[in-house]
């Protein structure tokens, strides 16, 4: 697994670097999405995850909120990258939102989505280069991680 400033970036995923979202492609064309290691460190401890009911069992348009993540000082959505259908939500996050911090690429996945067309997000070296470029700039996060940004991996205690 590649790391940039201690931020883990698994190979084989697609990345929306600007929004700190990753996607894993499946053979049927569906994708699982979550927030990246950079994203989870920048926003801090996730306290609530919710899923808009309006997206249930119907087609959603591009750029619609599929999930809402909330930390102590930040609220942000994961948006539909293309038009498509929500196949599943990680409802474990409703009770254990901290999974987004602890396992951003594993149990912390957020949405399983079937886009109408393949994503044109960055992958592999292109994504790593984009993250290197982004993290080389002065960084401001809401979690007390500023300037020389460096991802952190917190261990699980009693909350999960």
């Amino acid at each position, binding site marked *: 697994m590649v790391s940039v400033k201690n931020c883990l970036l698994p190979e084989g995923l697609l990345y929306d670097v600007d929004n700190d979202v990753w996607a894993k492609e499946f053979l049927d064309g569906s994708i699982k999405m979550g927030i990246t290691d950079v994203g989870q460190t920048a926003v801090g401890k996730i306290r609530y995850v919710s899923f808009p009911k309006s997206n249930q069992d119907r087609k959603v348009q591009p750029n619609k909120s599929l999930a809402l993540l909330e930390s102590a000082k930040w609220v942000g959505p994961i948006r539909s990258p293309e038009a498509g259908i929500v196949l599943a939500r990680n409802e474990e996050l409703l009770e254990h939102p901290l999974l987004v911090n602890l396992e951003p690429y594993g149990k912390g996945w957020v949405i399983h989505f079937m886009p109408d067309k393949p994503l044109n997000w960055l992958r592999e070296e292109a994504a790593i280069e984009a993250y290197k470029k982004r993290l080389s700039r002065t960084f401001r996060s809401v979690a007390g991680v500023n300037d020389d940004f*460096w991802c*952190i*991996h*917190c*261990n699980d*205690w009693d*909350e999960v």
Partner: protein
Amino acid sequence: MTKVKNVELFTHPICSGCQEALAALRKLDKSGIIQLSVKSLGTAEGRKYADAEGITSVPTVRFDHYTEVLMGKSDLNKVLVMLESEISE
């Protein structure tokens, strides 16, 4: 007389277990059992130090040549027992 042990605790603002580890070790520090040094990875200085020392996960406790990445309360309790027992010997 037993020499007071220098203990380093690596923490970070978003870490859930860090506060508990910090509270427990501060008690030992106040009791004079250890001398605690907290390295916050939320600061550039702390990150630089942690990077040089190969610490990438928090909370992590280090003393003498011993390093323990605390994965939960049981790890913290183990470290506390180690520190307290060395003093009582």
